[in-house]
């Protein structure tokens, strides 16, 4: 519209000074008219800003004053650790007897809990099958409940112990989770139980407890996540009608847990109903890793929940603060290891470092630049942070809590190599990790309000450094800014080219015009929009197809994948024949020269809208998707025209477009990325199917993004590439 206004005002000869358009309009026209330059500048700036993020990361700080981590000496003593050791011993000895060891260890734990004076209950659950439910994206977790025919063999039992705060009002609770496989007990799970038990036994006696403490020993025989998720589901959305009783009748062996209790007092305290405490304030999942560290005890924090949601940064901060400054543990966050050896990243780090030195020499106040080694570490951590957020699959059992707005993290503690053989070292390990957990619980206990003070949207570059949303959005905004600019300039050029007889102003892209065609110029874009709309519709059909493919019994991933691709192509062809033909027959008779430009412009706008929407839902997947999509969409140009022109520029563009178009196909992109980081030896087409399966099993929005934004845009780009004009 702006452009039209401008072109109209341009036609009369200029005698007097034209009325100046407003500055913002002027700026817009300026950007659009130089869209090529600016799109290059902006995209490079976007990528640069992304690379600059580790440098721009700020140090974390504890934002909520009420937390007061580490302000008191830990109370956990060797006495509790000795008790915990006794639990480990009993567990291992009970586990050595193969008969009824599962029930035996569960019973042992519940006995230990009730001896401490905690309220103990057992929670039976059936693992949920991973099924594709097309309507369950973004819906509340309870609607995922489906009635399955449950077999008795497949049930797990969580043991739950609750300490009621002696003077608390029971409105809030802190949850401790230890995944524990009762069927096959191993040493590290026993150790994690010992840590939790030592803290739990301390908490039964402390006078300062204001929130109830729930210790959930989650049965992990069906995976660590499912037990926790089942318990949370029953905690928040219990079903009152009838399922529980059926279970008890159908599965007589499940009652053994209670039947075997010979002791009156314990039988009375263990109760098979569901015990609750109040609203959950925070949850900690404690795990002891089975591999050990070489030099010192260390701690790994996992925070990503479904769809890239993160817990409040303060929770990570207190854990980091207490672990580093109080217990002397080394804290790690997951890193993307292949990045560590990259040469160009190292050079980039060195450049940033020298730039930082330069800046400091100019003005010592400017704190810019970090050492190159830190930069590489930071970018590796940032990459893994981005990757796990983009994937939308939780990195541990803590992900189940985030679905109920509870801040939770998984702490995986790595003992030193020799520590587990040596009794003294093991005690020291238990004491330190127990004190860490105690400190965190005490901090959360101090909290008057729920976590709200610190960031929820951030990327970690190291345990003590983060990039907040205000900074990382700049990189994304710069990256996607060219899309609307180029779309507008393409549209303007395409509509101006109709006037190209009147005005001698050749459009940069549509210069191959021979004959003008007279159509309804202002309605022309509607055809393109229709096409784009139908392709997006096809995209949603493709993303629904796996629901039907899942129903086919005994399919290997590879065959499923092939069926999927075949069906997708079939549906595309069908859709093209049925829907696109009436609109395209007018164009077929007279293929327009500007049509591809309009189509590309609408595609770009659709991609822009899709990316912006996705950045709100899951920033990381929008960022990674943007990195793939923006160059592909911007560069798309009909091959026919380029081949006709035969200059170096056009040939290079052809090659570039073909490579991008090939790599841009989602399965190819997946396989290339997987091969680049893990080696091409074990790569299989079926892997993509399994990957996608994991995405929908976790209700990841990334799946929707791939199906409904990325794939249609790729198809449209390919369409533009092979446009006959």
């Amino acid at each position, binding site marked *: 519209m702006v452009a039209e206004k401008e072109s109209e005002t341009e036609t009369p000869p200029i005698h007097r000074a034209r009325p100046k358009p407003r500055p913002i309009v002027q700026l817009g026209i300026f950007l659009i008219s130089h869209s090529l330059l600016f799109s290059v500048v902006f995209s490079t700036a976007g990528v640069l800003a992304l690379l600059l993020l580790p440098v721009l990361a700020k140090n974390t700080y504890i934002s909520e004053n009420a937390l007061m981590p580490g302000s008191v000496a830990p109370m956990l003593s060797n006495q509790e650790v000795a008790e915990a050791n006794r639990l480990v011993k009993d567990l291992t000895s009970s586990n050595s007897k193969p008969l009824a060891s599962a029930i035996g260890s569960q019973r042992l734990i519940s*006995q230990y809990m009730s001896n401490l004076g905690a309220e103990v209950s057992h929670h039976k659950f059936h693992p949920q099958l991973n099924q594709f439910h097309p309507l369950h994206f973004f819906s509340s977790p309870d609607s995922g409940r489906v009635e399955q025919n449950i077999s008795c063999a497949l049930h797990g039992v969580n043991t739950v112990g609750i300490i009621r705060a002696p003077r608390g009002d029971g*409105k809030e609770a802190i949850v401790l989770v230890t995944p524990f496989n009762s069927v096959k007990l191993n040493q590290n799970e026993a150790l994690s139980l010992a840590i939790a038990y030592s803290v739990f036994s301390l908490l039964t006696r402390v006078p300062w407890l204001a929130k109830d403490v729930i210790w959930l020993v989650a049965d992990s025989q069906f995976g660590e996540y499912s037990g926790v998720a089942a318990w949370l589901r029953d905690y928040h959305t219990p079903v*009152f*009608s*009838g399922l529980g009783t059926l279970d008890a009748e159908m599965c007589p062996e499940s009652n053994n847990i209670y039947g075997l209790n010979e002791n009156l007092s314990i039988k009375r305290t263990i109760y098979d*109903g569901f015990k609750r405490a109040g*609203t959950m304030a925070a949850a900690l999942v404690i795990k002891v890793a089975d591999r050990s560290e070489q030099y010192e005890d260390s701690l790994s924090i996992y925070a990503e929940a479904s769809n890239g949601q993160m817990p409040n940064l303060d929770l990570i901060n207190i854990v980091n603060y207490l672990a580093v400054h109080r217990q002397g543990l080394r804290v790690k966050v997951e890193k993307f290891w292949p990045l560590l050896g990259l040469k160009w990243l190292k050079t980039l780090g060195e450049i940033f470092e020298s730039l930082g030195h330069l800046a400091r020499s100019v003005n010592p106040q400017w704190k810019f630049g970090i050492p190159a080694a830190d930069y590489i570490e930071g970018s590796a951590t940032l990459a893994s942070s981005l990757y796990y957020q983009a994937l939308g699959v939780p990195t541990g059992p803590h992900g189940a809590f985030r679905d109920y707005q509870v801040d939770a993290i998984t702490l995986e503690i790595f003992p030193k190599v020799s520590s587990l053989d040596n009794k003294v070292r093991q005690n020291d390990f238990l004491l330190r990790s127990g004190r860490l957990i105690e400190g965190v619980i005490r901090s959360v206990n101090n909290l008057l309000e*729920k976590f709200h003070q610190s960031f929820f949207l951030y990327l970690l570059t190291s345990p003590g450094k983060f990039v907040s949303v205000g900074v990382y959005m700049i990189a994304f905004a710069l990256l996607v800014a060219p899309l609307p600019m180029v779309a507008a300039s393409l549209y303007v050029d395409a509509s101006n080219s109709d006037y190209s007889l009147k005005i001698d102003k050749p459009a940069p892209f549509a210069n191959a015009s021979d004959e003008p065609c007279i159509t309804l110029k202002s309605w022309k874009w509607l055809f393109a929009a229709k096409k784009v709309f139908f392709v997006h519709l096809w995209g949603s059909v493709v993303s629904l197809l796996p629901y039907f493919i899942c129903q086919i019994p005994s399919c290997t991933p590879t065959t499923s994948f092939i069926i999927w691709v075949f069906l997708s192509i079939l549906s595309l062809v069908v859709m093209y024949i049925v829907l696109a033909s009436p609109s395209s027959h007018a164009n077929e008779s007279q293929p327009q020269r500007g049509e591809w430009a309009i189509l590309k412009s609408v595609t770009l706008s659709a991609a822009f809208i899709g990316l912006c929407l996705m950045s709100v839902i899951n920033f990381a997947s929008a960022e990674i998707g943007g990195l793939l999509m923006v160059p592909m969409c911007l560069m798309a140009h009909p091959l026919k025209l380029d081949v006709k022109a035969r200059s170096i520029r056009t040939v290079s563009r052809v090659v570039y477009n073909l490579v991008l178009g090939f790599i841009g196909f989602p399965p190819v992109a997946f396989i290339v990325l997987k091969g680049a980081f893990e080696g091409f030896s074990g790569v299989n087409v079926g892997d993509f199917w399994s990957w996608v399966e994991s995405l929908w099993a976790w209700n990841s929005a990334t799946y929707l993004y791939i199906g409904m934004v990325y794939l249609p845009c790729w198809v449209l780009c390919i369409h533009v590439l092979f446009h006959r004009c």
Partner: protein
Amino acid sequence: MALPLLLLRPILLLSFLLFAPILNFKAALGSVTEEDFSEELLLRPLPDRKVLAHFHFRSRAPHTSSNGRHHHLFPKAISQLVQKFHVKEMELSFTQGRWNYDRWGGFDPISSNNAKPPGVELWAVFDVPLEQVDDSWKNLTHALSGLFCASVNFLESSTTYSAPEWGYRPAPGSLRYGTLPREAVCTENLTPWLKLLPCRDKAGLSALMDRPSIYKGFYHSQRLRLTSSEFESEEGASGIVLQQTLTVVVQPDSERNVMSYSHETKLQPSWSLTSIFGRMVTGRCVLAKSSTIYLQLDRGLVGQLDYLQKENELSSADKSVYEGFSSNPGFELSVKPDRVLKELNGFEKKTPSVVYEFYIEKYSESRPFDLGLTWKLPVVWSCQKAPLHASRFLMGSGNERGAIAISLRSTEVSDEFLHTDMSEGRCKLEVKVFQVVPWYIKVYFHTVRVYVNEQPQEVSDVVEKMRVSPSVDKVSPGVMEMVLKFPCGMKSAAITLEFDKGFLHIDEYPPDANQGFDIPAAIISFPNFHTSMQFFTDKSVDRSSILSKFQENNAVLAYTEVLLVPLTTPDFSMPYNVITITCTVCALYFGSLLNVLRKRVGEEERSSKSKATKETGRLRQLLSRVSAKLRGRPFEPPQPPSNSSSFISSKLILFILVAGIAVFWQVYFG
């Protein structure tokens, strides 16, 4: 000085002992002609190694018509309260901690009367015309707020209190009920409460109230109950009766001995008054008519002890628990009780509860009273529970909607009762639910769903009677009173109610808005079941206020948990950000406006013409050439800055400076 006092003390004591029967006699007649005061303490061992201490102080004042307005013992503040606001009945409780209905019992008078929800609970019945009740309530809350150093005045707002018709207690119209679940309770509330006692905490049983040991406990409830018949003209009305109770559950300090994880049960910790309170009773409050300490043994405990007795046939068989304490196999008392009372057995199957009575009159400074209980054998028993165990919880997640669920689960007690009843014919278990929900929790009462034994039921089949007064935004809370009738063999039941979470105005949020908002405890009562304990005594029942309290036929009553609902909260720093950004925008706006106003078009054109003629700096020319090139326009030579424009630009710089300062302020001090 000490000698005369010591001499005087027996005389005083003697005189009181002489007068006591007369007082008793008068009191027994029903109407009080003279003010009196009695202090009592009930101790009861609890199954989970804790001890319940229940202080009970009763002050009575006769009717003003007979006695005038002056008081000797009765607190003047309270009588003035009654006179001024025409309070007929009132109860105020300050509670910290939760009563554990499973472990500490739910079927005795103490749990029904003295187990209160956390925070402050106040209810009052007024003897005024119905339209004045609200005014009286508001005034009363303010008076009590001042009297007890608590924020009871928050109950003044009509969003916090409700007027139950029959769900709480039958007093239609003139009853008001309100709770403050978040009120913290501390010594500052106890001190004014103690001030109402004639001896404060200087003498008598209240001297035991060592603050650290009282507040260290697991449950602490301080209560003030007032009944007055001041405004009944009827002759022989009892005047004002003020009952002050303090219920504490404490854990006796037992040295944390080696934890035994074997299956054998542990010996209960032995305790004494000194180990619990760190003090001994050094005589009674001389103003008290009676001063007694009771040690109550549960029905369950007595049953266990009897069982033990039968097992150890070593001692002579005829000695039972309630006859001799020295020969008791289970425990030993350090002081010989003055009297042993046995509960008149209401239920045939149950063993009776036993009360040991100790008169404090005999003890003095030189001979302090320290009751100690030493367990000899490990005893495991359980308290009598309410017919149904009630718990309430929130369902759902997110900031949009949710549901309140009340789950009722039968306990073994009700099994016994109900099955006996079942034989008599059709029987129904009646449950009364009273629930107040703040207005921002928008409960949809039509979504009531009832499940019995995990089967959904028609609401009309189960709900006998229901009264709902829906909440009005910012005016009144939603109130639900319900009578449910369940079949007797019921194992479990659940009631669910859906709600939407409302939005508050920004200034309605409390300072700790992010904690969430409280839904006060619901009250579950069982009208069919009564907590009455008849003790086998003679006429002297009236002498003891606790035991007469025990005889009252009250319905079994339980409070559910307080719930915490997280609501959406606005970004509270937003107004500040908005203010700073608005200021910046205003500064820029006025700057440019001034700029435009000061410019004159004609002069500008003239100056541009004159500028065109003049030679300007090369750099400026170059710049304008570049900018013209970028804009795609013919180049026009730049104009030299005129005087006015320089003035304007300096103005502009000033405004930009102001804006810059505002931004700087925002960034560094915001």
